């Protein structure tokens, strides 16, 4: 059995390109056509576990036409003989205004009707949580309860502010300099 036969890799690369284009364009029929039409097909998404082609198809039909555009940071394709291959990719995609890093693994098999995805898994790396303890502690101190769904974007803003403050506070400001508040007694 030959690993990474260039002809097979070229075919899988083409399959990947068609799938990616269909994904970004929300082209559900192409996406469905590329999945193995079998009760044994499987797709684990970021928020859903789908068993069988029917569940996968139903999920795609119900999915709103949101912007699914993503940047591929790294693509690895490995083939095993002439009938099996794995497409692994790492992607970056803004979600709720925050840049998230994700991974996707697809197992492709060449059936008589052509290459199909038999199994796929998509996941997101967690947002760095270093500041979440800060967010929780300070918001509690000021009686502000922040919806958990907003923690990612608020932490992202705090990170940005932290970077800006870090740059500002590198400045060697003399202790003698007083602020000029508008308060007048």
């Amino acid at each position, binding site marked *: 059995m030959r690993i990474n036969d260039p002809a097979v890799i070229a075919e899988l690369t083409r399959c990947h390109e068609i799938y990616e284009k269909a994904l970004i364009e929300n082209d559900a029929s192409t996406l469905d056509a590329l999945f193995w039409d079998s009760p044994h097909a499987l797709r684990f998404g970021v928020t859903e576990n789908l068993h069988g082609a029917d569940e996968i198809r139903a999920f795609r039909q119900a999915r709103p036409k949101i912007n699914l555009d993503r940047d591929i940071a790294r693509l690895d394709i490995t083939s095993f003989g002439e009938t099996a291959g794995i497409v692994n990719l790492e992607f970056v995609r803004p979600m709720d205004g925050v840049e998230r890093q994700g991974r996707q693994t697809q197992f492709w098999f060449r059936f008589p009707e052509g290459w199909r995805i038999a199994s796929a898994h998509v996941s997101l790396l967690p947002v760095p949580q270093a500041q979440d303890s800060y967010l929780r502690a300070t918001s509690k101190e000021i009686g*502000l309860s922040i919806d958990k769904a*907003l923690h990612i974007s608020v932490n992202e803003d705090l990170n940005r*502010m932290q970077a800006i403050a870090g740059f*500002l506070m590198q400045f060697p*400001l003399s202790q003698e300099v007083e*602020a000029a508040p508008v308060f007048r007694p």
Partner: protein
Amino acid sequence: MSRNFEYAGVLETAEAVRSGAVTASVVTGAALGRVKEMDGEVNCFTAVLADRAHREAAEVDRKLAAGEDPGPLAGVPFAVKNLFDVQGIPTLAGSVIRATAPPAPRDAAALSAMTRAGAVLLGALNMDEFAYGFTTENTHYGATRNPRDLTKVAGGSSGGSAAAVAAGMVPFTLGSDTNGSIRVPASFCGIFGLKPTYGRVSRRGAFLFVSSLDHLGPFARSAEDLAALFDLMQEPDPQDPAGTRRPAEPCAPELKRGAEGLRVAVAGGYFTDQGTPHATEAVASLARALKADRVVELPEVARARAAAYLITASEGGNHHLADLRTRAEEYDPNTRSRFLAGTLIPAAWVSFAQRFRSWYRDQIREVFRDVDVILAPATPCPAIGIGQPTILLKGVEVPSRPNIGVFTQPISFIGLPVVTVPVHLPGRLPIGVQLIGAPWQEAKLLRVAWELQAAGAASAPIARPVGAAT
């Protein structure tokens, strides 16, 4: 009617009304007609107050008939950003949270200075929610479109104010500027805007964003109009805690001295390194017209912007803390997380930023010892597309929203007065150039603006005059 005053400027309209060439009621009716005709596309107005406008116009006409002086702005239609209190309606400040606030008991001070001078209020104008934005893409009330290209944003946060003037709906409007909210939309819409010295114009009755940095000011289509409006807005007001006690310093009488005797320089470094070639060309075209070949470098401009950002986040967040506690979900998704994050930032950052502000002010005072007016771009690029997430600066793709204010934030940070003048390079969208002065030197800026306009280097033609009745 023998003469069409529909697209006349502020002073021309007032003169026509005062001389009896046209009545205030006719002018007002025509302006309301333009709003009705155009605003479906441009989306400037969040409230049209036709009854009030007709009443105010009738009062001007009554005074004229009775031989009384109706004021220097007799019968001139205008509108205000919806963070100004307008008697009888809630002050939205771009939000839905305040849609249920009690109606304002009286007009904001700057607004009533206009109506006391005879101007006629037509309504309230769209903005970024709570002024926290540079594009007027308001989730609740829709994006205000740029009348020079309806696929582009009008700029913000006073986007409705700039677009209404550019489209010729009204000859002037009022807006506010914390980090660039007058200068950015004036640039994108290709009109004149004035951000006065901090403390010069009373903010009483305006729904503030960041008290330490908030200014109010006018938009118009000529330097003369801007000067006339600003002169009427200069009323010392002890009820604005930041208000100056300096007596008014009228600018209109100075205007025609032009740039004569003024030392004009171009801001270098930070201000030339980051803009698009379009922005740099616009500044160069004005420098040529003024024969200004000096370049001045302002120190630590990037840190000034950083400090302004932190003060904005902290004060803005704290201002909204009560509503963020109870109804955060009603905020515009475009502002919400920044307001929430702003409530949490360490005091050390903000105190440092406030102390840095003093240091930076002192440095810039030194710069103004041997220069009167500094030219700098108002925005790094002309109007961007509605929904456009990034802009290309020096070949690098950067997020558009936070970078639109790169040239305005470091200036308002220390309250310097700025006139934004519109530059229309052939075949391209307009872009604004900031004329920056030392505190209280608005007259010098307006003189230079007047000179540039007289030389044809700056102009604010109406964007889309449609349906002009004759």
